[in-house]
């Protein structure tokens, strides 16, 4: 009896999710139609609904970015392009549009170049999704165990040597892809970077209005967030300077 109940539940859940996927597809297409007719605000409304309901596709975010851009909401556009870029690191359109949107930012700065190893690491981690990395890790781990069995029970010397090499490689692969999986999840879902949404923002030396004004930045700038105290957050500018700003002045990627 229990098994049958479980089966029924599984089937209903699967059917419901399939149905919602269908309706999502429809709503997405509806947004595309609005966009094509130049009704950007209507398109944004529909797509933002989808986004808020938890749909996690780079195409959707890219489209939202485009629709914001067309309404001249540059910071929102940059925010969504950045989100899309994290989910699909290699997409040329996303890259290009992000570049176009960034050219509208008022602030010009000399960015501190990131250590190239970190850059590579991040790029590699983002090249496929966190889930794919996790799957790769598990599969390579299981293959490694099977190879280990071959190593243990084989009496042939040649087989033993080959399988040992394979065990080593597979272990490394499994470990590295697990690390990448974690990194990718961190970058995509717990990113420390944020886009400034306030038109003009003053960075202060302490988390209060009485703090000395350190710098003035404008909307659209990408900053790194740090410690949060009260309604204040410490941010790090691309040129390395730090200051405190209100938490409602930016939106995390």
């Amino acid at each position, binding site marked *: 009896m229990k098994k049958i109940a479980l089966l029924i539940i599984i089937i209903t859940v699967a059917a419901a999710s399939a149905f919602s*996927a269908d309706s*999502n*597809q429809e709503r*997405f*297409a509806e947004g*595309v139609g609005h*966009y094509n007719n130049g009704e950007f605000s209507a398109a944004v409304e529909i797509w933002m609904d989808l986004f808020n309901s*938890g*749909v*996690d*596709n780079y*195409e*959707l975010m*890219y*489209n939202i970015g*485009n*629709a914001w*851009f*067309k309404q001249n909401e540059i910071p929102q556009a940059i925010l969504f392009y950045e989100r899309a870029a994290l989910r699909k690191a290699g997409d040329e*359109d996303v890259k*290009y*549009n992000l570049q*176009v*949107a960034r050219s509208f930012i008022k602030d010009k700065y000399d960015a501190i170049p990131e250590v190239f190893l970190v850059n590579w690491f991040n790029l590699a981690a983002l090249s496929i999704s*966190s*889930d794919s990395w*996790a*799957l790769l890790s*598990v599969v390579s*781990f*299981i293959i490694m*165990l099977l190879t*280990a*069995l071959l190593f*243990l*029970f084989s009496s042939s010397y040649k087989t033993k040597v080959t399988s040992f090499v394979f065990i080593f490689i597979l272990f490394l692969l499994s470990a590295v892809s697990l690390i990448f*999986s*974690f990194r990718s*999840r961190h970058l995509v*879902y717990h990113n420390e970077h944020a886009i400034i949404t306030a038109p003009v923002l003053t960075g202060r030396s302490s988390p209060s209005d009485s703090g000395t004004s350190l710098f003035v930045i404008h909307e659209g700038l990408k900053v790194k967030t740090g410690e949060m105290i009260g309604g204040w957050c410490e941010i790090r500018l691309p040129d390395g300077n730090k200051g405190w700003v209100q938490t409602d002045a930016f939106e995390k990627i």
Partner: protein
Amino acid sequence: MRLITVILLLFTFKTAVLPGQDIVITVEVPSVVAVGEQIRLMYRVNTSGGELKEPPFEGFYKLSGPNTSYSMSTRIINGKITTETSYSYVYYLQATREGTYTIPPAVYEKGRKTYTSDEVIIEVVRDPSSKTPATTGNEKRGAETPAAGSDMFAKVLLSSREIYLGEAVVATVKYYTRVDISGVNEIKYPSFNGFMKEEIETPQPRSLVTENIDGVNYGTGVFQRFLLYPQRTGEITIDPVQISVLIRQRGGLSDPFFGDFFQTFNTVPRLVESDRTSIKVKPLPEGKPASFTGAVGTFDLKASLDKDTTAVNDALTLTVTISGQGNIKLTDAPVISFPSGLETYDPKTTTKVANRETGSSGNKIFEYLIIPRSAGTYTIPKIEWSFFNPAKNQYQTIASRPLSFHVLKSEGPPAAGPALYTPAPGEDIKYYGTDIRFIKSKIANFSKSGDKILSNRSFYAIYGFSLFAFITIVLLRRGQVKRNADRVKVLNRKAGRVATKRLGKASSYLAGSEYDAFYEEIMRALWGYTSDKLNIPLSELTARRAEEELNRRDTDMEIVQMLIELTEICEQVMYAPVSEASEPHAVYQKASRLIRTMEEKLN
């Protein structure tokens, strides 16, 4: 006033110092005059040799002056001689407008000393005999009061009081007179600030045209006509025109004998000034078309190419003609979007405009030189051009038809030489604008965030489970191996006993002289023992295999040789006729000894 008192005091002081030498400047002028009346202003100085600086005659027009005259009179009264010198400066002025005017003191300089006259205040009143003439005819709008009395006045007549920016207005400078004019001294036309001024050719009047204004006939003449194009919006004031004319006046009485024929005439200068007038300039209405470049009026547009077919690098000319009436001089060339592949230059502009009373009319020709750089058929899209039509109060857009032409491939470089031929360089792709790329129209599959594999505990369980399975498999396999090893040991242990049993059975066969069975039993004992002891299955056991196995275990060659020798003997006896050489007892002895030694050596 105080200053004057001081000056007067100074004079009295000087008089005291230099008696008989005091210099006095007196002024003679009527205190009340009428507008347009000619007045005589005279400064009289009772000395000579100095210089009079005339004051500015504000509110008056200087007809002539200064005319100087000198007089000296000497009187002898009771032997006392008094000499009076008088130097007079006479100015003829004409009052132009009503009001009270002050002529500041004139300054007389003699030597290093300066003397000043009194200030003069003159009140100008309206000529009591003049009436405001009501204008007639189609120039009613330019209603102005005559400036110089009723017998003569001038006007600046405007064809319209309210116009659009860029629309033309005709200003006519006209005079009205009832007296004889012998000539014109000078005409000061207004500066027409805020307008672009075009003169209309006006023939000088030969004879006056009679016009009746308010029941009075005036002779009228037009001095000049102007076309004015306002350059800014709002109320623009046009300064009055000032005309200095010479009027013939009858001098003296008419001759009783010869009548008017010998009448003498005096020519008197006189100023005629019009009133200030103003015009309202309206801005152009909203909703300017994109192709509007500031033209106001009515226009027509024509475009043509000088040839339909040309060769690469062979120039052709596009002529755009804008003709019509309006501010044609101020219009700009229409914007033409030439197809790519054509090299174009700024147009050559020719303007032909005739100014008439109805406005400027003419045409403006724009000639575009086009050099095609690659072969093909090109189409110049229709040329759109807009203007504002003030009569219809709306913008109008006119367009030419699209023009096409063929460009043939040039047949190699021209023979004339390389001077004109420039090899067409590879053309870069032309980028016109930047925009974001288009949206993605499809999503392959909808994934939801939050159900990431990493966040799922069962993901880590997979690692644990597979590792557990691995260990289990290894352990199970180990146990099996161990059990196998145990079976070998048992066999090993039992091997000696089994062999002894078989040897015993063989000895009983020997006693019963059953030799075949005896050898068979010996063979079995030996093979069985070797198989069990060396862990070689019976099916695989050969002499060679046994030898390998024994060698691996490092046993004596002797045992190996003995085993081989014994098995050979047994096989010979079993499969060949009875051999004399074999001694069953010796074989038995040898076999039992071999098993004993192996038992010792292999444990």
